[in-house]
């Protein structure tokens, strides 16, 4: 059963002077539990694929089905719920709130969904312990290393136990050793879930079972 299905996706951007076609008739199908990497150079449109799946942006053309429903038929609130409970998003830049502790950062999506503080903190604490950050729970992001910050971000992505993990260059800001650790953690955390990883690094992509290259707006199977 496909969890993500993209068919005939076109997406272009314009800077006012020029139009950039980044996705041209892109097709992508990802089954449940599959881990997929998309490799491509900067500006090739990799991130657009994730944003389209998450409903953060709309394609110019084509259909996107996530968890069995066409994103175009989801309401604004429906897309929010998809991002809240259906998708865990991990960014290259971590995007943690600097004024919040690691615990509060992980608890944030739950608080946004209106969960009581005690429940959300308990869940966040448990996840941070799983990530090996039990002793860094009350530390704020600026005092955490890059690897630690990314582990907090992964914990945040997992709070609602989402069936899909979207990871956008999750190791792009880390050194090689830390990147390896983080990738192992990400892949193990995504076990049983669908993982879609975007990277320009083919060694990182090797952590996944299926790999595509994004070229000229289309995907090429790398095996």
């Amino acid at each position, binding site marked *: 059963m496909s969890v993500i299905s993209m068919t005939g996706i076109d997406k272009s951007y314009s800077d006012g002077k020029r139009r950039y076609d980044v996705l041209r008739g892109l097709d992508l199908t990802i089954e449940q539990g599959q881990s997929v990497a998309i490799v491509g150079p900067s500006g090739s449109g990799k*991130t657009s694929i994730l944003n389209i799946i998450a409903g*953060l942006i709309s394609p110019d053309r084509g259909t996107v089905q996530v968890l069995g429903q066409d994103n175009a038929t989801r309401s604004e609130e429906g897309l*929010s719920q998809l991002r809240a409970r259906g998708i865990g998003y991990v960014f290259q*830049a971590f*995007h943690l709130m600097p004024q919040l502790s690691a615990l509060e950062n992980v608890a944030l999506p739950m608080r*946004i969904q*209106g969960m009581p*503080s005690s429940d959300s903190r308990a869940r966040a604490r448990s996840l941070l312990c799983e990530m090996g950050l039990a002793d860094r729970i009350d530390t704020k992001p600026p005092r955490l290393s890059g690897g630690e910050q990314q582990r907090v971000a992964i914990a945040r992505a997992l709070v*609602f136990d989402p069936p899909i993990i979207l990871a956008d260059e999750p190791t792009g800001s880390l050194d090689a050793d830390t990147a390896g650790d983080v990738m192992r953690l990400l892949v193990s955390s995504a076990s049983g879930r669908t993982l879609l990883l975007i990277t320009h690094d083919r060694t990182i992509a090797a952590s996944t079972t299926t790999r595509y290259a994004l070229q000229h707006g289309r995907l090429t199977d790398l095996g």
Partner: protein
Amino acid sequence: MTLKSRAISRVTMVRLLMAQLGRSPLLDVLVGAAVGSVIGLVLAFVVHYRVDAFTFQAKSDFGGRTTIDASDYASQSNSLDVLQVNDVGLQRVREGPDGEPATDVSRTEHVTVMVVGGDLSELRKYFGENVPSGVSTGVLLDRQSAQALHVGKADQVALLLGLTTDDEVPNVIGTIAGVTLPYADPLDPIAAHGLLILRHQDLPAGTLGRLTETTDPRTQGRVFRYFTVGSTAPNQESRWQLAQRAALGGEGVVRTVLGTAGVAAFGALLWLAVVWRQVRRADDRTAQVRAILLATGASAKSLRSTMTMIHATRTAFAAFLGALLVNAFALRLVLGYVSQVAVAGVVAAYLVVFALPMIWWSRVRQKRLPQRLVQALYTTES
């Protein structure tokens, strides 16, 4: 989502967004209040002066004596002293239940008061036999009689005559048909020989000149401008009727309306620019946080309404503070008999109303340009 969940969600969003904004909301409130109060004060001044111009159609220095040329009104000119006395007015007096006069200051009518020197009998040449001769005697003339006295379309002309140079001018020199006329000339209290009260816009060209021409050339006529509170004359128009009629004609009225509208429009543009800048800056500063919240499952609609709430609250505070400043600085002397509280309220409402387009614009922009918000996820700023 339950009410409690919504509250938790909204509070979390507000907390994060406000943390991102730092001190800028406070600064925005202070700057907004300063700009808003300046706009409000300028508006109040302009309205005040334009309304005065409407009343008298002649520029006079506030609170002092100036001389205007009677050729404004007559071909044969005489120099007229003009004294603006704002704190002395004609008050409407209603007969109370006990038969005693009860002052009602709820209505104001602008009239021109001329104090004319010279032999009162001369006035009869112009005003005919309707001019009474007794000391402290007055009449209130209706429209017909006023027209008979060559004062055009005046609805009422109050003549209070009979004071001589030797008479001491009391604060209240008489009552005419229920109108009490508090009077005081702080500069020359015994210079009054006669007192003619009529709405200035009803004063036909030449009347003033003819009046002063007939008086003793050594004695100058004095024109006092009062704020009055109407009269109980049966043909008294309502204030609204007066405003309507006034709005239909008169150069001064046109200037008043144009001047006020011009300043109001300019102030609105300035205020819109200030609010636009503040809204845009706040939107930009919170873009990344909002993008993160959006990506982690926050409702886009809730985010928009939270930002709208922040913008609206901040602007409302600025407007309220601006109105308070206007209230504090808009002295009664400046604003005449218009309630300072009313002026402050109008200023606050004006500022709030003209902030709404920018707040709405922010909301529309957030909704229509989600791409811009998503881009904030890929900026290096944290």
